[in-house]
Every structure is written in C-alpha cells, then in structure tokens.
C-alpha cells in the first residue's frame, strides 16, 4: 500500500484502529535486509548440507525412482492447471447463478490454498497414520524392508506396510495376562456407556439442539465417566498383571500415569489458586517481590537438582512411591499456574467482590464463594495443563521410580526403544497409539479451554 494517498482516510478509522505513520528508510529496508540475510544463510547451510551428502552411497533398502521430483513438480503443475480451469468454470457459474461479480483470482486463490493445505495435512498427518498402521503389523514394520518385486508402487517403495498381514498381535502382547474382577469390568462398562453418552450429547449440541436438559445430562454423564475412571485407576493393583514380560504391564503403566497426573493436577489447583488470588487482589508489601521470586526460582533446571531431590525423598522415605513423585512434580509449576490465575482474577470485575464484602463477607469467604465459582474454566485449564504435562514427563519418573510395576507411560515407551541390543518398534507403535489416546481425547474434548488458556498464558516462565 503506498503511503501518501492514505492520509485523507486516517480520520475515518475506528478508534483504536491502525494509524499509519511514515516509516523511516531503515525501517522500510529492514525486511529486505532480513530477507537477504536469510537467503545468504540458507545458501551457506545448503552448501554445507550438500557437501555432507558428498560421497555417501545410495541405500540398498530404499526404492529409487530416478528423477521422481520432476514428476512430482509436473503433477503439481498439472493439478494447478486443472484448478485454474475449474476455478474459471466455478467463477462463471457462480456469477451466472448469483448475478454478483466474483473475482476470478479469489476463487483460484482458494483452490490453490486447498491444494497447499492438503499437501501440508498429508505431510503432517501421514507419519501418524503410518505409525498407526505399524501398530497392526506384527512384523515390526517401522524397520521393514520394502518388497522390491511387488507390482504396487506403494508396497514396492515401502510407503504402505503390507495390508494383508495386519493383525492385533502387537496389541495382544500389551494385554496378555491381565485379570479383571467382575466389578472392574462393570466399572469399565459404566465408564464406556458414560463416554458414549457424553459423545452423543456433544453431537446433539453440535447439531444445534442445545437445551437445559441436555446440558444437565451431559454434566451427569461426565461425572459418571470421571467417577468410573477414577475408581478404576485407584483400585487397580499390580497383582492383576500376570503377563510374562514388561509389555504386558503397559496398561498398568497407563493406570500409574493417570493416577499421578490426576493427583498432580488437583494439587496444582490447590497450591496456586490462593496465591494467584492474593497476587491479583490483595495489596501488601512484598507481593510483587514474591511473585518475581516465584517466577525466577523456577527457572532453575530442576532435573539437574535430581540428586538432591532424590536425597530428600530418601530422607522422607518416599523413594519409589507415587506420593514422592507427585510431591516432586507439584513443586514444579507453581509459578506458571499462579501467574495464569492472577491474570484471570484481574480480568474479573472487582465490583462482584466488593458487593460481597459490603454484605459482610470476609476476604476468604469472597474468594471461596465469589471468585472460585467464577473460575471454572481457568481451573479446568490449570488442571488439564498440569495433567498433560505430567503425563508426558519421564525424567523424574525414571529416576525416582524403579521397577516395571511403577513405570509411567513415558518410561515404559522408552524401554521399548532403548533396549540393550534391540528395539521393539511394533509394540512401541501399539503402545504409543493407546498411550496417546487419553491425551488426544482430552485435547479435543477441551480444546476451548486449551486455546484460550495457553494463549492467555503466553507470558510464562
């Protein structure tokens, strides 16, 4: 946009809108300078990368298509050409139908965007799909050799594992030797039914049938689901796992992880809400300094203090217990959670609390009865964030816990890929699929809290 003719319109901009100012020469040149530096940097990098490829032999285990990239570019070109044509038809047709002017370039742009996004999705999601397939392949196919004689190019290149041999063998290895008493089966069934109900309610809401009864039903189904899951997790014991090897205790590791993560999440809420509230609302000397202290002390790389943490746990007799692990985790995210909660309380209107105080409530009562009930979403975010962070942690868990019966999911998965002389990729793929499910479900189920909370908490650590 050229700058000079903009001046007359400036007054028309809405308040708070963007006001254009003449940038200095250097300011205008900056993007180009950065671009030039980037291009040079990439050039140098590409040179070194190409040099490191010199003299490397071609792989015997990879199916080669000489000049395949030319074909791929031709394909892209052809696809763009087709899109240009369909866009033209679409634009003409749309204009004829609606009678309005439709920009050809806009239509074409959208079509090309689709093409680009489909490619991006393919690149980003195909690896996941591939691992999912590998989980059903009993031949450890993440490390399989392609079948060079196969007529199908997808098999010949190894891009797809051979679909004929798919089986549940890898999963079966994760479940061998598990004994479930009747009441646990019942609980699991109950949880499953509740999950189905939640999904149905969500679907109904998506279809626009929102009503008070629906919301109440969904809430109850949710409570039931959480309750059944919690009971299962708490009352499952290592004795139920009688399988011969470590794989067969995978479900136990999921249970351990859920237990640790859940309790850590609850503790995170208990520890950070009061502090966050005080930092936001109370005015006392030392408040600001304490907040900074919280933030800065947690910049210490805690897992290099592991030896000390371990010594502490020995002193307390809590090594190799989940309690010790939970306590060690809980110290870790206080600053972040306090900061987030402080920001949230500040965004609440102060008048509500003032009204309650005028009615004779104390500070503490105000906090309990006014602020906390309003912070459901934020508390959910703090819980989920802590839960998911803990779920993926493996270093502290690995040092503080010994023995397969105590392992968390992360430690268990590590043991599949870092064996002494062998790696079990097939079992890993199966376990990864199952282990990721709870977190993926949480993410998609509570996307709203996540996106809001994480972006709001951008200023962290």
């Amino acid at each position: 946009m050229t700058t000079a003719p903009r001046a007359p319109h400036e007054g028309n901009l809405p308040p708070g809108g963007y006001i254009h100012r003449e940038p200095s020469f250097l300011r205008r040149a900056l993007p180009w300078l950065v671009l030039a530096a980037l291009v040079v940097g990439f050039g140098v990098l590409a040179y070194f990368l190409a040099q490191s490829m010199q003299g490397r032999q071609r792989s015997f285990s990879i199916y080669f298509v000489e000049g395949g990239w030319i074909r791929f570019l031709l394909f892209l070109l052809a696809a763009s050409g087709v899109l240009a044509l369909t866009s033209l038809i679409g634009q003409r047709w749309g204009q004829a139908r609606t009678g309005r002017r439709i920009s050809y370039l806009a239509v074409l742009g959208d079509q090309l965007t689709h093409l680009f996004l489909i490619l991006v999705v393919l690149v980003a999601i195909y690896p996941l799909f591939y691992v999912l397939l590998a989980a059903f392949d009993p031949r450890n196919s993440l490390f399989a050799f392609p079948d060079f004689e196969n007529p199908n190019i997808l098999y010949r290149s190894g891009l797809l594992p051979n679909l004929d041999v798919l089986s549940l063998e890898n999963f079966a290895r994760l479940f061998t030797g598990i004994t479930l008493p009747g009441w646990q089966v019942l609980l699991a069934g109950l949880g499953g039914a509740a999950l189905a109900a939640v999904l149905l309610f969500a679907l109904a809401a998506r279809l626009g049938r929102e009503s008070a009864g629906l919301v109440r039903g969904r809430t109850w189904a949710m409570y039931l689901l959480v309750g059944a899951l919690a009971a299962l997790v708490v009352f499952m014991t290592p004795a139920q796992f009688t399988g011969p090897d470590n794989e067969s205790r995978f479900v136990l590791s999921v249970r351990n992880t859920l237990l640790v993560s859940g309790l850590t999440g609850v503790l995170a809420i208990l520890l950070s809400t009061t502090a966050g509230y005080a930092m936001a609302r109370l005015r006392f000397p030392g408040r600001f300094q304490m907040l900074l202290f919280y933030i800065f002390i947690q910049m210490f790389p805690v897992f290099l203090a592991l030896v000390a943490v371990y010594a502490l746990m020995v002193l307390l007799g809590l090594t190799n217990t989940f309690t010790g692990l939970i306590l060690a985790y809980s110290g870790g995210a206080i600053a972040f959670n306090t900061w987030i909660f402080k920001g949230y309380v500040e965004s609440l209107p102060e008048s509500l609390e003032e009204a309650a105080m005028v009615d004779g409530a104390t500070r503490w009562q105000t906090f309990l009865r006014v602020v906390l009930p309003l912070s459901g979403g934020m508390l959910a975010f703090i819980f989920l964030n802590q839960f998911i962070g803990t779920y993926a942690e493996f270093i502290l868990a690995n040092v503080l816990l010994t023995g397969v019966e105590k392992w968390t999911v992360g430690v268990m998965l590590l043991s599949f890929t870092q064996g002494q002389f062998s790696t079990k990729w097939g079992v890993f793929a199966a376990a990864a699929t199952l282990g990721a499910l709870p977190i993926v479900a949480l993410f998609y189920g509570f996307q709203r809290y996540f996106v809001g909370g994480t972006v709001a908490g951008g200023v962290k650590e």
Partner: protein
Amino acid sequence: MTLTASPRPRTAAPPDGVRGILLAILILAVLLGSAALIGWLLSGVTARFVPQAPPYLILVYTLGALLLGMPVVARLFPWMVNWYYLVPSLVFLAAFTVLPIVLTVNYAFTNYSGQNSGNPDTGVRTEAVLSADRRTLTLAELPEGASSLAEFLRCRNASCVGDTAILYDEDASTPVRAQIASVQGQSITLTAPVAETFQPASVTRLNRYEYVGLANFREIFGRASSALWPVFVWTVVFAFSTVVINAIAGLILGILLYNKRLKGRNIYRTLLFLPWAIPAVISVQMWKALLNQQFGIVNKTLGLLGIAAVPWLGDPLWAKISVLLVNLWLGFPYMMTATISALATINDDLYEAASIDGASRWQQIQNITLPLLRTSFTPILLSGFAFNFNNFGIIYLLTGGGPPQEGRDATAQSTDILLSWGYNTAFAASGGQNYALASAIALIIFFLTLGISLVNFKAAGVFEEARR
C-alpha cells in the same frame, strides 16, 4: 504482649516498604522453621516408640504444627493474614524446589560424584583383627596400590587424626563409622573402643566428598572450547531458529485458515491440531523411527522423489536440521492456533476499510494483520524461546545429543543443548555420575536463563503486569 502498656495499638496495616517485607519474611521463616522443628522432634519421638513409623510423618506433623501456629501468628500480627494466601505454595516451593536447589548449589562447590559419594568403598575392603582393648585394628595386608595406611584410607593428613575408618562385621551389611586417633604401619588406633556388641572383621575407607572451591567452574571454562561454547551457541541458535520457523509456519497456516470463504477450514484445523495433542514423549520417539536412514518412511518417500538417503540422525549437521524439523512438527499447531485466536480479535471493519481503499489481500496482511499480530505474538515468541532454551525432551528422545562430533567432549555432542549436557554429566554413562560438575552446569544454566528472561520480561512487559 497485650499486657504491656504499649501505647501503640495492634494495627491491621503492615509496616511499609522494605521493612515490612523483611518483617513478614522473618515471621514466616520463624513460623515455618518452628513448624518444621516441631515436626522433626515429634517424628523423632514417634520413631523411638514405633520403629516402623514411616519417615514422611515429619511432613504430617509439620503441617499440623503449621495449621496450629497460623492462627496464633494471625492474632499477634493481623496483617500477616494477607501472606497466608501464599503459604500453601510457599511451603511447597520451600520443600521441593528451594531445598533441592540449595543442596545442588552446595554440590557445585564439591567433588561429589558417584564414587565420591560419602559412602564406604567396598572394592578395597580388607580383613582386620581387633586388639584386646578394642581400640586398635590391625589389617591383614595393605591393599594393592597403596603404599601407606594413610594413603589407603585417603586421610586428610599423614597422621589420619580425626579421619574416619569404616568397620564391618562378618556379615558386612551395615557399615560402622569410627574416628581414627592415629595410624601406625598396618594398624589403626581409634579414639574410642569399639562397642561390645559389634565384632569388626574388616575395614575400608570412606570415599568422601569435599569442598573444592571453584574447581568445577574452572574445569567448565577450561574446557569451554570443547563443551560450553559450542553447546551454548547451538542452544541459542536452536531456541531462536525453532521459534522463528514455527512462528512463520504457524502464521502462514493461521492466516490461510482464517480466510472465512475457505470451505472445510475446520477440518484442516482439526487435523493440523493433532501433532500438538500427542504427547511429545510419544511423537518424538516415533520420529526417531521415521527418520532412520535406511528404513525410515522419510527417506523412503525421498527415494520416490529420486533423492538420496539423507543421514537425518547420523551426521552432525543433518541431525541439527532434524531436530528443528521435528520441533516444527511439534510446535506449529500451537503457533497456528495462537494466530487464529489473535486474528479473531482484529476488527473486521479495518479490512473492509482497506478493501474500499483498493488494498490487495497481501497489502492488508502486510499493513493490518502483521502489525496487530505483533502485540499478541511478542509474549508467545519470548516464552517459546525460553521454553526451547531448556527443551531437553526433544534432544534426549530424538538424538540423545548425538551424533558424535570431532573435538567435543563425550558429554557434549553435536546436538546437545546446555541442559542435556548437564544431564549427561550427571546421569549418563558418558559422564561418570559427576554430580558436582552437573550442579555447576545447572548453576550456569540458571544464570543464563535468568539473564535471558530478564530481557524477555522487559520486552514483554511482565514487570508492569506483575506490579499491577
């Protein structure tokens, strides 16, 4: 206190300024300290009467004492009630963050390691005979390699006065410490006779750790060219470029997906959200398999395009690229989502006004979208930098710091960042459990992170927000 005829009434207002802060901290420290003391005493008493009592009872007792003490203090200093909101988090920070940190800082000035751990050395345990007065132990022989008893016992001085010898009975399961009065030839004289109930059969030394001043830091800086500098440079380059790359990818995708005309954009969004939803501990290990030079799907795909097999994890330079690419895969959904939610806050009228002016889409992006995004992106980028500066997980899981690079220490290979270097030093086989050196590294990392964060916070306005 209330009985004294003090003219000053107890006020609900704390003293102002630094004095108020210090006073409050002092009161809190006394409160916590006495609670901990009571807990310690009580648990000691419990342990005497009920030997099986779990040691963590001290936590329970301390908590109880704290709960009882808080109302008392609140009565004496009503203004302390404000601080009570911080007590739960403070207690936890003190116990599980500050205490380990203090210990670690302490280790940084010692030679504490797996071997110098303050424990007896069983490798050189030697048979010994106790004299009749139960004060002198005579060794059967001097273990190989030691020319004198003082050397064998690693005494601080030649006479061994005040040093410790470790005695074992026949079963050798419980080491007993004994003070040395003197050594002579092959016999050790103790300061006190050995207890009647204990029959020593062998003797060994204590592999104690001691304060070595700044030796660990001297070692780090002395070998800086093969560890500290290259690792530091790579850490900064990694943290910076990964944030920039992720942000650019996220911005492009976010802007494309914010186009309201685009059909099915929710499907794209949902699918592209997936890498964020999968725990990194799972997906990074998955990438390790996919990036295998001979069998990985990535090179198989490249083979279809006629591109030679890339040593993704086998070459120092390519491994760095791999780390960045995998981190891009892990991180772009977050940046994309952040872009979309930031875009949602921009007033549509701006675009309308611009299109009336005849501005093209590109000009709109350049002159409206990007400047407005800058406000919400600055904190995200800065925190992303701080996060990736210590992003141990991806390095450990993907490359393990490797592949090896010429001219580097075994603990600081081509893709090691500061944190993984410290980890290797303390916990990997390559570092020989050098806890003291790792603690010194931790201290350096802490100050580096602190410095970077101070700059970041200044830029992001955190201090203003905190003070508000």
